[in-house]
C-alpha cells in the first residue's frame, strides 16, 4: 500500500506524495475505494499535495474519479500543491472544480 488514504470521515483526507504516474495511479485508485464505499458520510475530501512532486494524467483521473463517485455535494480541496503540480491541473481544467488552498481552511 502506498498510504495515500489518511482518514475517512465528514472531512476525509488523502495525502498525495512522490510521483503519481501511470504506474502508481492504480494504487491511489485502489485506496480511494473504501472512501467511496462510505460516501454518504463524506462532506469534504481533502487532497494534501505539499509532498507531491509529479503528477501525470493518470493521477488527475484518480481525482476526477473520486469527485464523480462521491457526487456533486462533496467539496474537494487541493492543499499545498506546488506551481508545477497546479500547472498540470490547470491545463486539464480540473482546477476550476477544486478549492485550492496553501493550508486547509474549512
Amino acid at each position, binding site marked *: 500500500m502506498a498510504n495515500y488514504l489518511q482518514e475517512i470521515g465528514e472531512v476525509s483526507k488523502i495525502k498525495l506524495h512522490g510521483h503519481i*504516474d*501511470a*504506474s502508481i495511479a492504480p494504487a491511489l485508485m485502489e485506496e480511494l475505494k473504501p472512501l467511496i464505499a462510505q460516501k454518504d458520510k463524506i462532506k469534504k475530501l481533502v487532497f494534501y499535495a505539499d509532498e507531491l512532486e*509529479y503528477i*501525470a*494524467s*493518470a493521477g*488527475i*483521473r484518480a481525482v*476526477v*474519479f473520486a*469527485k*464523480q463517485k462521491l*457526487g*456533486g455535494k462533496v467539496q474537494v480541496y487541493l492543499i499545498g500543491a506546488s*506551481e*508545477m503540480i497546479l*500547472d*498540470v491541473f490547470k*491545463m*486539464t*481544467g*480540473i482546477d*476550476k*472544480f477544486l478549492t485550492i488552498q496553501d493550508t486547509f481552511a474549512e
Partner: protein
Amino acid sequence: MLHCKEFPSKREFLPQMLTEITGEIKKYFTDDKWINRLKVCAEEILVNIIDYSGSEKIFISCDFLAKEKTLHFEFVDEGELYNPLEEVPEVDIDAEMDVRQIGGLGIFLYKTIMDKLEYHCDDGKNHLLAYKKLV
C-alpha cells in the same frame, strides 16, 4: 542527443525512459514548469504505446533543431498501426467535473503542450513526432 534508443515496451522501464528523456529536455529548457510539462507529454505518449500498441520495443529519439530552436522527439513502436492524433475524442476542459469523460486526458495534454505533432507509419512501424520550440 538520443538516437533511436531501444527500450522494452513495459511499464517497469518507464522511469528509465523518462530519466533519459528528461536529461535531454534539461539541456535546452531551464524553466521547471516547461521541463515538467514536456516530461508529462513524454509519459503520456509512452504509456499509450506500452498499454495499447502491443509492441515489444519502443525506440526513442530526441534532438535539438538549432535553426528552428526546437526540441524534437520521435517515438517509434512496432505495434498495431494506430494514429493517436486522429482517433481520440476532444476533451472539453470546461465540462462540469461530474460529467467529465475520464479518458483522453493524456492525449489532450500532449496536444495542448506541444507546438506540433505528426504521425506516420513507415516499414510497418508507428512514428509519432513531437516538436517544442524553446520558450
